[in-house]
């Protein structure tokens, strides 16, 4: 799905030099335009003037803390995606951060892959809806609801299509059967855990030759690995 991510403007607010250099380096290599500051006040000024697609925000800043920056961002009704980085108590910060309007959070330390995945997910969320997604040998035309595997058209039932759509929006995330059932609730009959297994298994059979992997989380749900990105 890398092809669908265009150049985005990202602001990194982090006062630790080593970490911020790393973050900037990762984001630049992914092809984004990255600005960097260690000051919460300056970040607030920048956010008021410039138009960013994503804010990577550390909580512990020397002047005003990240939560305050976030509060001011949301007070301006800015739709910017915000990824909060925290070195403090994960759960407390997470709850507080999400209350203030953060879109996601990462507890330090984190792996580069984890950071990249979260950034991608946030950018995708704020990007215009994709019309065409291709993963490995799988090509999905979202608008036309058409699926091709290795250039061969594949027919999906409405439920299989709904499942595929759900997986495509949550690559790399574990989905519980409860979540899937909730998502597919629009259909006439409520879905049992067994029914979900049947639908996933059919979807899997239809698209597995494309090199995408739907992992089973035993007793819990599924994980769409999304092939190679």
């Amino acid at each position, binding site marked *: 799905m890398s092809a669908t991510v265009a150049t985005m403007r990202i602001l990194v607010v982090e006062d*630790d*030099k*080593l*970490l*911020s*250099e*790393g*973050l900037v*380096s*990762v984001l630049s290599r992914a092809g984004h335009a990255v600005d960097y500051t260690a000051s919460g006040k300056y970040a607030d000024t920048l956010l008021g003037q410039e138009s960013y697609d994503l804010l990577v925000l550390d909580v*512990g800043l020397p002047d005003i803390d990240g939560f305050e920056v976030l509060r001011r961002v949301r007070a301006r009704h800015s739709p910017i995606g915000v990824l909060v980085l925290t*070195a*403090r*108590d*994960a*759960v*407390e910060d997470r709850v507080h951060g999400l209350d203030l309007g953060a879109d996601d959070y990462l507890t*330090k*330390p*984190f*792996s*580069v*892959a984890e*950071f990249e995945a979260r950034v991608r997910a946030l950018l995708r969320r704020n990007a215009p809806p994709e019309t065409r997604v291709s993963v490995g040998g799988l090509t999905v035309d979202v608008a036309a609801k058409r699926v091709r595997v290795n250039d061969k058209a594949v027919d999906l039932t409405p439920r299989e299509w709904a499942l595929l759509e759900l997986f495509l929006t949550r690559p*790399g*995330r*574990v989905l*519980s059967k409860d979540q899937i059932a909730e998502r597919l609730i629009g259909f006439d009959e409520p879905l049992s855990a067994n029914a979900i297994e049947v639908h996933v298994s059919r979807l899997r059979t239809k698209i597995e030759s494309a090199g995408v992997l739907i*992992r089973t*989380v*035993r*007793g*819990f*749900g599924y*994980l769409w690995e999304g092939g190679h990105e």
Partner: protein
Amino acid sequence: MTQPSAPDSIRRHLLIFLSGSLCVMILGATLVTYLVALRSANDAYDRSLLDPVVDIAANIRSDGSGARVDLPQKALEALTYDQLDTVIFQVRSERGDIIDGEEELEPPPAIPTGEHIFFDSTYRGAPIRVAALHATNGFTVQVGETLNKRNRLVREIVLAEFVPTIVIGAAAIALAWFGVARGMRPLEHMRAELLGRSPRDLRPITNVTVPTEIAPVAEAFNGLLRDLRDASTLQQRFLANAAHQLRTPLAGLQMHLELLLRGELPTNVRAEVERMHSATVRASRLANQLLALAKAESAPDQGRPLEVIDLKAVGDAAARDWFSTAIAHKIDLGFALERAPIEGDPVLIPELLDNLIDNALRYTPPGGAATVSTGVRDGAPYLSVEDTGPGIAASERSRVVERFYRVPGTSGDGSGLGLAIVKEIVDRHAGSLEIDTRGANGGTRVRVRFPPPGPLAQKPSPA
């Protein structure tokens, strides 16, 4: 906590003192009674002893041939007759010659003419009481009697006094016993209160009524508790800060090493960088664990208030957080989650499960499986993690919850803090931790049971 034996007991001191004093008082009272009784007996019997003396003195006739008692033998016998005592008499002339009666009676002390006295003497080796009269006609008449009646009276009086005194004394000792026990009760309560506490409970003693006498002790103790609490809070805050401060540079380090590993590196350099990376990850984990330990250790009233938490939801979150790690370790991580509400700390309970899953993934060889279960069994909510790893030998199970203890010979890069953190968190929630081996393949199963939620806000006293 062992109960200290009482080498020095206030109660024993008080009882010995009170009993001793009472014994001395009873003895004193008995002596006084004896003296009073003796005096009363003498007063009573001396008067009747004087009667024959006066009668005999009045009947002394003297003529040319000498003096004699002019009484018929029968009358004399009647005068000196007694049921219990031997009564004897003696009449002496002015010159001291015995003119009638018993010869062996000692001469009396000097008596003024016309006076009488009573005195103690002996007769044939036995103690006697004597009444003596120096009559106006010059003769001295003595009548003596043995002490049987008097002694009997004294005995009766002393006994009549002694029995109630002993009863009263015994009652006083018993009352003292109960009184002391009653007086010591606040101390007992305080002791029970302190013994029943968890070692982390540093709240001041307030729920025991403290009498004024030991109020200073309680105050001093509360002061000590306060200091301890401050010190422990300070230590935990330091630990938490240190862990926080470590996280950011470690995050930077880890990120740079990962970026380095993405590029082209000579094989030997890559191996080195990989080792550095894994050491960084380990250090990060250690920082997280120290932080968790600091949180788990804080005094119960200093942490967040307990909330009703569903262990199933904690398991759900763990499934999302841990599945990719499990894939990386090539371990089939599965779940069997049923609703299991508990009253718990919303930060520490996920920490507990994270540590259990981390251990399972760390020590189970690739290709193995680990399963997280939650639910309610026999009314008790539980959370368990079992794996197909090497298991923990029965002899090691009590030691693995010690800090920094690692089972000898285990591979893996654990810090030895995981189960210590789990134990702290379980203790804090008044739960029970059970480590055993499950199934033929002998993996580890760690099961934590919690008290059911509900009107448990007040922890029941362990008495």
